[in-house]
């Protein structure tokens, strides 16, 4: 259940559509601007500190190589040696730049969050005022309309509307009240109406916003499991390349020509997987960042990665699969009643009804029977009879001379209102129609009218017209969405409190794979455990305190920002928009992060082939002129060949920074199709691109005196 939003919060479906329009359905993120590179330069320079570099084994090797070549260039200066030295340092710098840019984007998000944490003055119940930063867990403070809530807490007294736009960025006003699942409030949000007493639940500096800031800034960034595994592979490859280069020297010596230190370092740097080594941490940071841009905050990179591995999605029916409210979908007149009469009466009864159900009836009669959607002046003057728990009906009393009264509502209530005037046959027929609607999973609303008491016989005076069918409406496009998920190997399970019959109807209409009907929190927990026992990873959304155990058990638990503190503590992500549909997008972001890592690693390794073709003939041409046959790129001189390879190696890092930040294009499809595509683009592309790139760079480099 999402919180009842009072005003202009975007309904989930619309938010999803806006997101889809912005990104063209593929997962994407904000545009990368070259300006960001410049902004990140000071940070990148600061990262040249070896204590920082040593954390990344591949880039550290380049760093050491740069030092060695610089010393060699000082001892034995030449244009070639200095060029290599400069470009090796640039390689390290570009690697730092990638990380710095990614962090910079995170920092911008953090600043936005930090702006919410203005210094507030808190008022205790006894009237004493203390700075918000001095509040401790358990303190009770009073907040009135127009005041900012000083810290994370729970409402213990009162009800209020709260503006959460400071956190969510959307001008969403939500109702918060003591007791139940809507009692949690976040520090930095503003009370718009009424007065509440809040019990503080977070120590200063440990509030929700504080933790999010730390995470977004990457201050606490821990390497994710896959990232560690990949780092091990890259480190091992680096060691082997180190051996290959070190042992090449005696072989070269035996063959008659020792190689200079500068050339050997250049070869080493070109061979080790610098591209992926440089971009690896940026990819991780950018993954978190992409979630933040969707207004989802993950408590760890591990959670983002887990999202990519999810194979079972638990989706709440309401709000995710169907619109939150039931909508009128059909009119069933009694025999002998014209359907337009029923439509007219139903419309009249609903014109002044502002509930979603009421509006949907007007929309239905407008769409299917051409009746005006707006009330005429006369109609607007009619007296609206609102729904009440005792009458279980709503309608209008018309003041048009006839004295007509129109009502819609629960079948039994409408029949009782009409009284004995309704013939038994109509009564039986109405009940039959209502029963049919119920069996389809819908809700029947009876519609009846009473005309001017004096004009007609009792039978004509009070007439029951038929049944309006209200039902859950599956969101458009959701079935295709589930189809895509299925192609990606993800099973969807719909969670609903409905009875199995109703649940089944929605399940069939939406194409969901499985249903958990009449679900209790215990059922959810058991379901998650069962899925996990089968080796599947589970993602779910939740907001209530009783969702907390399931959120904690799930591999990816997305808590709604509108939910309780307990739910937010239990989950490993928080959706600031409280939009359960986003779970699907979260999975895609997780997958995209993994795909990007794999693709750039493949690209990086495939690059080595071209670099060998550039450097090996250059190294040994003087020894074995026949190795010139390997110089397929026709590079001008040995020096230009080696320098071109080094320059390509450095520039490719910069060229790929936008890709690392944005993520490799990801469209939901089966693993085999994804693999075939990515192998072609990044595997084959990784073989071909450097041949072209090195060739082009050489055309320029050969013009440099002392090289060409």
């Amino acid at each position, binding site marked *: 259940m999402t919180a009842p939003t009072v005003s202009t919060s975007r309904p989930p479906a619309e938010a999803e559509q806006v997101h889809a329009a912005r990104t063209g359905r593929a997962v994407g993120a904000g545009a990368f601007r070259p300006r960001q590179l410049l902004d990140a330069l000071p940070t990148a320079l600061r990262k040249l500190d070896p204590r920082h570099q040593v954390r990344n084994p591949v880039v550290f090797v380049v760093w050491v190589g740069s030092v060695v070549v610089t010393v060699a260039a000082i001892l034995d200066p030449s244009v070639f040696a200095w060029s290599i030295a400069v470009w090796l340092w640039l390689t390290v710098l570009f690697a730092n730049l990638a990380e710095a840019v990614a962090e910079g984007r995170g920092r911008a998000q953090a600043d936005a969050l930090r702006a919410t944490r203005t210094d507030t003055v808190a008022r205790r119940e006894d009237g004493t005022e203390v700075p918000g930063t001095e509040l401790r867990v358990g303190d009770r403070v009073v907040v009135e309309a127009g005041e900012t809530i000083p810290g994370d807490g729970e409402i213990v007294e009162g009800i209020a509307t709260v503006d959460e736009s400071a956190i969510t960025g959307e001008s969403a006003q939500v109702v918060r009240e003591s007791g139940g699942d809507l009692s949690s409030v976040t520090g930095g949000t503003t009370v718009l109406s009424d007065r509440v007493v809040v019990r503080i639940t977070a120590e200063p500096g440990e509030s929700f916003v504080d933790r999010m800031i730390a995470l977004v800034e990457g201050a606490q960034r821990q390497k994710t499991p*896959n990232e560690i595994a990949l780092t091990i*592979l890259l480190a091992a490859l680096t060691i082997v390349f180190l051996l290959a280069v070190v042992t090449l020297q005696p072989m070269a010596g035996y063959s008659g020509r020792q190689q200079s230190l500068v050339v050997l370092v250049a070869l080493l740097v070109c061979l080790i997987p610098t591209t992926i080594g440089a971009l690896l941490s940026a990819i991780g940071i950018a993954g978190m960042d992409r979630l933040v841009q969707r207004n989802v905050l993950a408590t760890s990179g591990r959670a983002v990665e887990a999202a990519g591995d999810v194979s079972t999605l638990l989706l709440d029916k309401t709000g995710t699969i169907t619109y939150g409210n039931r909508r009128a979908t059909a009119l069933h007149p009694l025999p002998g009643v014209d359907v337009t009469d029923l439509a007219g009466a139903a419309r009249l009864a609903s014109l002044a009804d502002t509930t979603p159900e009421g509006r949907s009836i007007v929309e239905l009669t407008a769409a299917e029977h051409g009746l005006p959607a707006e009330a005429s002046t006369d109609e607007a003057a009619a007296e609206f009879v609102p729904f009440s728990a005792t009458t279980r009906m709503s309608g209008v009393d018309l003041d048009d001379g006839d004295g007509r009264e129109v009502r819609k509502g629960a079948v039994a209530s409408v029949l009782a209102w009409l009284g004995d005037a309704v013939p038994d046959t109509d009564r039986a027929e109405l009940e039959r129609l209502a029963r049919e609607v119920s069996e389809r999973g819908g809700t029947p609303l009876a519609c009846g009218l009473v005309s001017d008491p004096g004009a007609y016989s009792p039978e004509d005076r009070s007439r029951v017209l038929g049944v309006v069918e209200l039902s859950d409406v599956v969101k458009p496009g959701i079935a295709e969405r589930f189809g895509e998920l299925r192609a990606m190997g993800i099973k969807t399970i719909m969670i609903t409190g409905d009875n199995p019959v109703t649940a089944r109807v929605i399940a069939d209409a939406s194409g969901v794979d499985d249903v958990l009907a009449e679900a209790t929190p215990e059922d959810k927990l058991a379901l998650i455990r069962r899925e996990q026992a089968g080796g599947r990873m589970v993602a779910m959304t939740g907001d209530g305190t009783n969702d907390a155990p399931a959120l904690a058990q799930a591999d990816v638990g997305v808590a709604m920002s509108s939910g309780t503190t307990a739910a937010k503590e239990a989950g490993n992500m928080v959706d600031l928009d409280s939009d359960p549909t986003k779970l699907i997008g979260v999975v895609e972001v997780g997958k995209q992060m993994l795909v990007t890592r794999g693709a750039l690693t493949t690209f990086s390794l495939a690059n080595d082939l071209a670099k060998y073709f550039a450097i090996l003939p250059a190294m040994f041409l003087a020894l074995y002129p026949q190795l010139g046959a390997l110089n397929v790129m026709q590079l001008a001189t040995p020096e230009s060949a080696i320098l071109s390879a080094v320059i390509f190696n450095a520039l490719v890092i910069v060229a790929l920074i936008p890709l690392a930040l944005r993520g490799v294009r990801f469209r939901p499809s089966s693993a085999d199709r994804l693999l075939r595509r990515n192998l072609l683009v990044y595997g084959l592309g990784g073989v071909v691109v450097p041949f072209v790139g090195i060739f082009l760079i050489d055309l320029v480099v050969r013009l440099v005196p002392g090289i060409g």
Partner: protein
Amino acid sequence: MAGLAQVAVLLVLLAAAWRPLGDWMARVYTDESDWRVERVVYRLVRVDPRSEQRASTYAVAVLAFSFAGIVLLYLLQRLQTLLPWSFDRGAVESGVAFNTAISFVTNTNWQSYVPETTMGHTVQLVGLTVQNFVSAAVGLAVAVALTRGFVRSRTDRLGNAWVDIVRGCTRILLPIAAVAAVVLVATGVVMSLRAGVDVIGADGRSSTIALAPAASQESIKELGTNGGGILNANAAHPFENPNPVSNLLEIFLLLVIPVALTRTFGRMVGSVRQGVSLLAVMGGLWVAMLAVIWTAEARSASFAGANLEGKEVRFGIAGSALFANSTTGTSTGAVNSLHDSFSALGGGGAMLNMLFSEVTPGGVGTGLYSILVVAIVAVFLAGLMVGRTPEYLGKRLGRREVTCAVVVVLTMPALVLLGTGLAIALPSTADAMTNAGPHGLSEVLYAYASAANNNGSAFGGLTVTSGFFQTTLGIAMLLGRFLPIVAVLALAGLLARQPRVEPGPGTLSTGTPLFSVLVAGTIVLVAAITFLPALALSPLAEGLA
């Protein structure tokens, strides 16, 4: 044409044996009951055949068994004077004994000695031949343990190393070797316990032609992908390999178990397709490399329109290329021609087979576990590219699994590069070479590739009797064998502990042609990026001249 016919006959024989032998081996390692002779052995060594071992215990068993074998074999050689049928060949010199003990226990069968003047029949039969059986059985056991890692879930038990080793001998190697030996005798292979025969040659001078129990040795030497000849000329000697029929039979024997093991693997993991896709990788690379070697030898004419230097005319180009490709693609190392005399690219092809880390189709057991480890690395990279934590056969490949795989994949290149670099830096090495220039470097590179891969074939031309070579090649054989075995068993343990995740459309499907291409690509790419600089200075520099 005759050459292609040989290849065709070989492939038909292998195809015919693949299914029954593969299924039989799967039964051997899943059978719950013991043969009577096996029970006797278990009682003797006090092993409870029903008790299962953890990965660590399994590894300790394999290592202890192997090191005991090394000590025993060393002592046998050193104490040869006390043994019957020694023909006054004396105690084997310590460096040679050290190197040979390691060589035969590690399934390498690198020979830095002349058999017919160094080893008596007792050392051959009780020492070397026994190791030919048990070292192959150890390889099988490790491969089966890794397979069980994939099959089992939520357990820390991998089976019983003693049972696996014993069954490998009693149910697979001994029966096939026995039959094969008889068939080999029928083709003309010698089987004699005499030291030799004295003959008077056409020139009137008398000489002694060494005899040996060759047929029994020959069958297991090929079947167990060992390769150590009982005669110095190895399978080029007419007493070991008299004619094209015996030649083809020997090639069949050295390929049959590694090839059929893919079926065993498929059967045990419950999907034959998984095994077939690995077989496709092995077969594809084997065919490609055969084409390289064959073409190189046929084209580089030194005699009669082809390169027949160092080859037996009774085998010709086809029979020699087929043998060379198969012996280096498995970890056999038996030779029926002198690889040193191959053309630069032909010899380079044989070397490349080894630098692929022996997976085409690889040694008995070692081929399967090596290619599985490469597959794990390939799946790890490709799996990331489909947006999931990579899984292979329902097992997740995390940090520890990748670490184990990386150790296996990188041990061999490290040993080969370090060994070659060290050897070539020594001034004394130049004196040990027959050839200077790129070919000389090939000789050294080949030697370390052969040792680190436990192949055992020699390029020839390099004199390896110096203390330096005996020791460093010995170490390369030792580490090249046991580091990967320990890592593979650790990997098996990690896999067995995991629950098995049912593969779905979101997981990378293995057992498909795309997967085969991926694995083959990984094998070639890893070898290329590791060894291109070294190869550029040896076969490439020579071949492009």
